[in-house]
């Protein structure tokens, strides 16, 4: 327990002293996971909406695949993205392995099925009859889809939360494709693993606090939006 207390005190001191390295790590994590969330939304929202609204052969299979993807192990994604980005791999020419771009790619792969799955569920909750009534008011297909998404906007905020929450605290893939290079690809989670391994508990605790506060703030903001609209 003593270790925890002294570590926490030193951690707070570190944070108060605005340790440049720590803030740099925080900023990188935010940038990487934020970008990955945006990419996963850009891919997952249309995919989820299309899956919810369309009826085609093999739809059940695709939906099952998406649901499986929601629980994709990050290490598996890390391995896959490493192989793809490896010098001799299909995207090796991009030379982005061990850069933040590689982490963004891996995290987007992890978050996209989560966003797709939650969008699918959210849009699926909007009654079919609602779509029919919009068409009966003269909505084009695009206008209809847009309004259905608008109806589903509150549960879809959950997609944002789950997507971001899933990847900001993810470690396996970030470590594998980023390499935990100091000042370049070191994120909150990979830094914590390193510092804990080295016995620098005060730094690890400081990072842990930052991570928790970050996740809390994001969820608080989104919950506030949800509740304001749900009234």
């Amino acid at each position: 327990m003593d270790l925890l207390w002294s570590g926490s005190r030193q951690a707070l001191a570190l944070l108060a002293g605005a340790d440049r390295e720590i803030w740099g790590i925080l900023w990188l994590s935010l940038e990487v996971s934020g970008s990955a969330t945006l990419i996963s939304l850009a891919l997952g929202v249309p995919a989820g909406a299309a899956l919810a609204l369309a009826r085609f052969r093999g739809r059940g299979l695709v939906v099952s695949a998406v649901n499986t993807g929601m629980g994709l192990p990050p290490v598996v994604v890390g391995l896959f993205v490493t192989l793809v980005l490896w010098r001799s791999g299909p995207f090796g020419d991009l030379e982005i392995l061990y850069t933040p771009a590689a982490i963004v790619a891996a995290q987007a792969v992890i978050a996209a099925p989560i966003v797709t799955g939650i969008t699918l569920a959210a849009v699926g909750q909007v009654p079919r009859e609602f779509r029919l009534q919009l068409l009966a008011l003269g909505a084009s297909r695009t206008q209809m889809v847009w309004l259905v998404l608008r109806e589903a906007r509150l549960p879809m905020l959950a997609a944002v939360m789950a997507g971001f929450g899933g990847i900001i605290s993810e470690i396996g893939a970030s470590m594998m494709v980023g390499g935990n290079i100091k000042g370049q690809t070191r994120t909150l989670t990979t830094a914590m693993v390193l510092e804990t391994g080295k016995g620098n508990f005060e730094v690890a605790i400081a990072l842990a606090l930052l991570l928790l506060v970050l996740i809390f703030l994001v969820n608080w903001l989104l919950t506030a939006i949800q509740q304001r609209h749900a009234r």
Partner: protein
Amino acid sequence: MTQAAVVELDDVQVTYGGATVLDVPALGVDEGEILAVIGPNGSGKSTLLRVAGLLERPTRGVVRFRGRPVDAAHSLAERRRMAMVFQHPLLADMTVAQNVALGLKFRGARDERGARVGRWLERLGIAPLRHRRARTLSAGQAQRVALARALVLEPDVLLLDEPFAGLDAPSRAELLPDLGAILRHDRVTTMLVTHDRGEAQTLGDRVAVLMAGHIAQLDATARVFHSPASEVVARFVGVETLVTGRVTARDGGVTVVEVAGRKLEIAAPARIGEDVRLGVRPEDVTLLLASEVTPLSSARNYLPGTIVRVTPSTPAIQVVVDVGFPLVATVTARSLVELGLAEGIRIIAAFKASAVQLIGRQF
């Protein structure tokens, strides 16, 4: 047909999994009229309306809009000249005014959008609710919003699918005359689908009776209700008493038909010796005590009998009198008490010769 119908179904069939749920050789709604389509639940009414509203493509046949065939899959332009209201309105999660503006927005109609929305909120009596979130409305209020968002489009044809069925009796009693007044005043071309014959009678210029996917009768409202084309139609439009008799005499404008040993005088012409099916609507039958017979001189049929059943229901009470055959009458709760009607009581049932309908005979 002198003028082209606004929307018409031509040789339309709809089958689901091999079962034919709708088979309509021809049905059209003309400019400015209210066509009521009535039928029991499951008779294909809603399917018919969805096909007419270009929301569902028929298995066979075509839908014409102002004379031109339209494929439901490529019908945006035509759909934008129609509007449809459903039994359970699903409003978008926004304010009442925004909901009413929805169809105008779809059409990109910006001119006077606010003024038009305001006018229709006013006409449907929901102006005070304009800033309310649609989700917080009662069923009656929501249906008014749904009607406003359809009528604000000033559609070429308004399609109504059981618009009153989801409402409680008081809301329904308020909305029915309000909507009727608007449709009449603006001469809105309307196709109303309902299982309620009272709504059809109140609103319809013409009535189509749909039975098991087929149109059993299509005629002016009064004619459907007063000379039903068949026994199923007769029952559905509220003819409770249906009996068979033989024509025994013709005397001027009056035909005498013998039913179960009783002689009935009817206004409709028929050949002597012919067997006929007769129908009497319960509201056309008056129940009298023996001492009261004289005042109702225009009633030609006075049948003494015994009350066998009294069934209370709203708004009228149903009384079955055995006059040699069971004759159904409706009375108000007040006359029930005043006349002291009860099972076993002897009474006289009176009805006019013109109240007797000859079933299946168009004249």
